């Protein structure tokens, strides 16, 4: 009998005897003590830097004034949340956040999967390495530089307008960065351009883990390259895709921050202002920390809810989950 099976029998006995699951936990802890010991620095790090600062969320329920103790500030309950929900900008902010992150999810999520598969299909090793490296470069370019490149490319005097006018496609320049109707396309494309290469790494490593014999067997069974991708590669990386999808859905309200502030402008504010930029402008910049914290907390709670929901759906539908 395996140790795990023995533990389960013991747990049944404990339960029957009225003992808690705590015994099992400690038994496991003792058995896995080396692993826990190794994990201590990480646990301490998470406790200090991820959990300890969370006491600050209390700020969203009080009228905090910088310099005063958070816990001695006046309790205001859900005042800041209500203020956000009833703000005239609320509808616009939520719409922009959901649209931009929705586009990032719908287009930006599958794009690196596709690129990773394409990389995997390249037979020339040196060519593959070279274009892989080139694809990573935009990830290391700051948004400040990226925005400047976009202005050079898409501005009224930019390369694109110049090219289209020389080709006779346009009579006069188009303000791609000044007209709201182009903004979501531009920011989605910019997000994909910046992250696609970097995001392929995890998929490429997942693809590398697929047993080569499966491809050989598939070839014997008559699978072509598309068939191999569809029947072997994609199912092989399915757990990775689902894991990353669940996490990505959790970040549905993370629509960006720097890129909005840098690429957005006065003319396009109604389509770029998202939760994070709003919380920054109306919370941090105006010294209304409680308000900014309330907006941030609302975003985190919704994000957590979405992760749990997606995880549950994934577990039920595909038997795969992260928790």
């Amino acid at each position, binding site marked *: 009998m395996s140790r795990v099976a023995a533990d389960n029998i013991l747990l049944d006995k404990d339960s029957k005897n009225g003992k808690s699951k705590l015994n099992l936990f400690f038994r496991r802890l003792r058995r896995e003590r080396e692993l826990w010991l190794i994990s201590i620095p990480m646990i301490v790090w998470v406790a200090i830097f991820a959990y300890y600062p969370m006491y600050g969320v209390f700020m969203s329920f009080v009228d905090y*004034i*910088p*310099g*005063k103790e958070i816990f001695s500030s006046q309790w205001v309950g859900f005042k800041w949340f209500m*203020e956000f929900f009833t*703000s*005239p*900008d609320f509808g616009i902010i939520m719409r922009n956040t959901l649209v931009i992150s929705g586009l990032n999810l719908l287009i930006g999520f599958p794009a690196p999967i596709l690129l990773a598969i394409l990389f995997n299909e390249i037979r020339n090793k040196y060519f593959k390495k070279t274009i892989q490296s080139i694809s990573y470069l935009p990830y290391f370019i700051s948004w400040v530089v990226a925005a400047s490149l976009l*202005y050079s490319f898409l*501005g*009224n*005097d930019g390369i694109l307008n110049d090219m289209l006018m020389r080709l006779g496609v346009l009579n006069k*320049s188009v*303000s791609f*960065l*000044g007209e709201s109707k182009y903004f979501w396309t531009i920011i989605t494309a910019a997000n994909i351009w910046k992250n696609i290469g970097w995001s392929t790494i995890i998929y490429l490593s997942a693809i590398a883990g697929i047993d080569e014999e499966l491809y050989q067997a598939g070839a014997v069974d008559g699978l072509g390259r598309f068939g191999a991708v569809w029947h072997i590669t994609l199912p092989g990386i399915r757990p990775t895709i689902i894991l990353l999808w669940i996490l990505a859905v959790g970040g549905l309200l993370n629509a960006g921050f720097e890129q909005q502030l840098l690429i957005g*402008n*006065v*003319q396009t*504010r*109604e389509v770029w202002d998202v939760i994070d930029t709003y919380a920054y*402008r*109306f919370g*941090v*910049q*105006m*010294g*209304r*920390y409680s*308000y900014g914290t309330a907006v941030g907390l609302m975003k985190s709670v919704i994000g957590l809810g979405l992760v749990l929901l997606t995880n549950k759906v994934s577990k039920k539908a595909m038997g795969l989950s992260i928790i």
Partner: protein
Amino acid sequence: MKKIISTVMSFALIASLAAGCGSNENAGNTNGQTPSSAAASTSANQKVNEYGWAVPEKTLEITAYQADKSNPDTVAKNTELINQYLLEKFNVKINKTQLDIDPNEKLNLMLASNDYPDVIIAMNDDNLSKWKSQGKIQELTPYVDEVGSDIKTALGDTYKRYLDENGKLYGIPRGWGLLPLPDRSAHIRWDWYNEMGSPKIETPDDYYTVLKKMLEQHSRNSKGEKAYAISWNENCNIETLAAIWGLKDGYKEAADHNLTHWLNTPEGLEFTKYFNRFYREGMLDPDAFINKFDDWKTKFSNERIMGHIGNWWESWNAGHEIWQKSDPNWKEDQRYVQIKIKAPQAENAYLAPKDTFGWNYTVITDKCKDAVEIMKFINFTMTPIGTRLVSWGVPNTADSNWKYDGDGKWSFDETAKQSLLSGNYDYTKHDLLGGSQFWFGVQQSPLPDDNTSVCWYDQNFNQDSKWKKMFNDNLKGTIWDSTARRITFTPENPLTPVKQQIEDSIKTGWAKAVLSKTEEDCTANFNELRDKMNKAGLHDIEKFRTEEYKKNLEAWK
């Protein structure tokens, strides 16, 4: 290990607190005097320097943060020389920091972390009230009473304006007084204007007509790039445009002092349509609302812009100050000149609001243990000679702006003056002298001893400088006292976020109205914006401003 580090850090903190914040312990000081008493006393052997400053025996060290955004490296470079001078002549050492981040964020972080220096320069009204309410800044009234006689003299009757409801002073005002010089205006490319025979420009329509003709003659620059009559950058100031139509600071004032925002006035629609016409006729830069400052400046220096409406120095910085360095064939009249335009029905073009109350304050925080000594130095910087020193920088060097012979005898440096008049004054080089770096309580109005010299060195020769004189003459009558319009929106005020939302929306909505394809669309977009803003609370803002304005008028009669 953590415990040891924490313990060591705690000891270090306690030791540093015990050491006090404002003075260096001098090894030679063995008489047991406190830093305060050492500098405060005027003992027989205490030296008085040529500025009349009683040099303290121990170095007076002031740590300060200036809540103005600036590059820290540039600040360090520009304070080096004056710091050496102050240390040598005054035995005063000022460690000032300035950062390239939002000062409000920095001040909030300082408050939240309880980590801030002795002195904070350039604190605005909102922050002052916040810091005061938490007891983080010291009441200055007793220090001013004790060692600040020059502060009281300088401020005169206005001193009481800065006292709170309990008669206490918490901040030394900076930038107070009236500088009777215009600043905002319309601008025109002067050499091209002269080529056209200098037609009359008095009204917005005149300005439009001249710019249109000028654009026809210079539709592209030498590189073949398209030119425009006017442009702005993302910081377009609508209030300046409204001033041409007779509005003050963006508001129309009724006889009973009720204020109406420009969006709710016929003038607002009129000037919106005026600029829309520029857009429809291809005369307005299509990037006018999205240009970053540097892009906008490049368009200017690349001779793609004929005119401008804004601060006088904007077209100087972006125009001839660049051309005279980059173009060996540059001629003197290749520049922009500032002119006044006024809508025919407007009473006046109120282009230059002057808030005599000041920009902001210098405060002394509760961390400071040497407030009296620091106040003594602030007091010195508010004397006429002290103001000159901290405004014009170190005297008596080869590059100095002025000469000081002691006993109050001073003169402008002739070389610097002539370079300014000839337009060859090198601002970057002169910045190294440290002028304007330690403005603790500077006044904008002329200094009382001669009633002519002012804190900005270059503004002292306006009547001698051909171009400055022309600009001042052109803009006569555009200055108005806006002091009573100084209204504070504190973070606790429920109207503060409303005001921010409205300001953001107006910037977006007004750009949309100006960039409308037809005049009908422009009017419709303007009306839509007006209705939306009124619904969002613009009338509440108008009401609040009116009430506060009336209170100020009453209080400062």
